[in-house]
């Protein structure tokens, strides 16, 4: 990597250059139908507990991805705005990481992802306060898995107990499986070789996951148009997800 000269490009330029990234996502809000298939798929893939009606209505649901819906105007002249799927943005400069006193929220230099080390978490919940996207969820209790959901755990994903923060991992277990396979075959992971559970389940193909460091990848090809934007980019967190709207 080229040494960063702050006099030449300024701090924001330095952040952008340093932040090339490895894994990324594009989400097309014009295609999203708000069907919540991604939410269901994510819960199945990542052993996410169901908190029940009461806790969910009190803001304690554990979904790692949520479909935000907004509208403009006052009833009855209400106009829906595009759905906004919200998940961990895997910021390059993640505000959640420095505030954890025990290094449970850490950055993976190899994958350039934000990781949450469940068995290191002591539950101060500082990371969740400091996340401008509010995508971290906390295990407020030990939740029961009702029949027959107790039979469908993903063996590649840890089951979390009470008092632990969790969040989207970009399906890290799938990334590792693909990398292991690629390594065994002596090659790099190809773009589109695997995808995350949410992207896989999306019937409208609104969520696309892939490699940011491969200029030919679908994510990079789609990122070109001017209609892309990043969530709260003015905060300088350098998110890894690009949103498209009103193309």
């Amino acid at each position, binding site marked *: 990597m080229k040494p960063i000269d702050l006099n030449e490009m300024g701090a924001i330029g330095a952040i952008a250059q340093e932040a090339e990234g490895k894994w990324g996502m594009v989400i097309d809000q014009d295609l999203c139908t708000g069907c919540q298939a991604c939410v269901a798929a994510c819960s199945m893939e990542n052993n996410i507990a169901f908190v029940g009606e009461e*806790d969910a209505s*009190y*803001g*304690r649901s554990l979904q790692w991805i*949520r479909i*935000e*819906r*907004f509208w403009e105007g006052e009833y009855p002249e209400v106009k829906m705005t595009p759905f*906004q799927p*919200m998940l961990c943005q895997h910021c390059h400069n993640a*505000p959640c990481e*420095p*505030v*954890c*006193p*025990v*290094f449970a929220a850490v950055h993976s230099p190899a994958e350039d992802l934000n990781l949450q080390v469940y068995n*290191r*978490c*002591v*539950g*101060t*919940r*500082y990371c*969740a*306060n*400091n996340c*401008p*996207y*509010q995508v971290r*969820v*906390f*295990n*407020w*209790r*030990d939740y029961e898995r009702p029949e027959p959901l107790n039979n469908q755990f993903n063996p590649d994903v840890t089951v979390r107990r*009470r*008092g*632990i*923060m969790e969040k989207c991992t970009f399906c890290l277990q799938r990334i590792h499986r693909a990398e292991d396979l690629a390594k065994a075959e002596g090659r790099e992971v190809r773009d589109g070789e695997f995808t995350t559970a949410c992207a896989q389940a999306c019937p409208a193909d609104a969520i696309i996951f892939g490699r940011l460091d491969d200029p030919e990848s679908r994510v990079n090809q789609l990122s070109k148009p001017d209609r892309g934007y990043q969530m*709260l980019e003015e*905060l300088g967190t350098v998110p890894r997800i690009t949103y498209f709207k009103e193309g």
Partner: protein
Amino acid sequence: MASTTMPMEHAHSEEAHLREQHLMLDPRPRGEMNAMIMEAMHYTTWKFWVVAAILGAIVLVGLFGSWGYMIAEGLGVAGVNRPVFWGIFLVNTVFWIGISHAGTFISAILRVFKSEFRRPFTRAAELMTTFGLVQAGFSIFMHMGRVWLSYWLFPYPNQRQLWPNFHSPLSWDLLAITTYLLASTMYLFLPLIPDLAMARDRTAGGWRKNFYKVLALGFRGTEGEWTHLRNAMNIFAFAIIPVMFSVHTIVSWDFAVATRPGWNSTIFGPYFVIGALHSGMGAVIMVLAVVRATMKNMKYFIRPEHFDAIGKLMLIISMGWAYFFFNDYMVQWYGGDKWTEALLHWHEAGPMGWMWFLMLIVNVAIPWLVLWNKRWRSNPWIVFVVGLLINVGMYLERYIIIPISLTINRMPFTWRMYEPGIEIPLSIGTLAFFILLYMIASKLIPLVPVWEVQEGQMAHSMKKFGRETVVTVSELE
């Protein structure tokens, strides 16, 4: 003849007036004063035991019972949710650290500046520091999701070579609060040694004798021992002042370094320090009013002059708080960030807006209206009420900064109100525990630093220059 006796009577009454007003000018024999303090410790009515039993029950059920239940069930039994990840537990933490501030402030700053009125109540204030920090510690551990792993926050050598993250303000907090707890406990203990030795020499036998014997560390009152004690107290009095300022500044950094609207304010450090002093002063004056009314012989030691002096400090601190509040508000509002704007609007006009207005009334308006008047601020029960209201106001201030500010964030989809659950019995439990510890301490250790009072009285005398009675002071320390 009448004309010659008149000035004499006048002079006498002036002297008597001064003596009645000022503890330092109203000396009593040392033996008598020591006996008074011993009697205050030993004299216990049935009312004391009733109150202690009720408080003990509240501590057992409200604090330890509820906490045990919460550890077993998870934090779901509390009211915290998304986005209000921090609730009353952290409000309590900040509140108790604030309370603990005034103890050291009164004691150390007034000792350094040699303010004579401090003498009878430094101990009462220092005890507040230690017991307040105990409650702050309870609150911070209650807040943790997995409190049984809280030792991971400490930098201890371990096989995995894992170290705490010193980038995290919570690590700074832990170090600051631990330092403050240790330093303030030692600072409480040092001036206590001569009084413990006094109690040891005036206790016939039994467990109390052994208790004082051990804690007095064999203090006999030789010149060498006094020199060592004074040196140590001097060092601590100076050293603890920066520690005290750093603690609440670091607590404020928990909020100020975060990326949240309303929290990310550069003035939070001094604003929190002055807020802590505000609530702490209120608490000191409440404690003194209660101690004076309930404990034997305390009306001699704690007099209206002390309420008057602390009342003045409270008024000044209230003005300081108002200044920092205004400064913080002004800069945030002027910044024009749309999320901060929404938050400020939420503070004032949201469903909990009454808290914001009540905070300003009890923190600013009432102290300013009451404390300017010397007669009012010399009345223990009037300043007790003012101190209570200030503490309500400061609690509301922390409540507004933490759970109410957290309901608003940059993701409007997640906005949600906070309803406290098991936090309420736990908060009452910490308050009861604080009072209970204080009550127990008042029966075990001399609540008035009697040697400091005697020292001050020896330095003060009244002399007559012509017709005028003048208070003279000799430099002692």
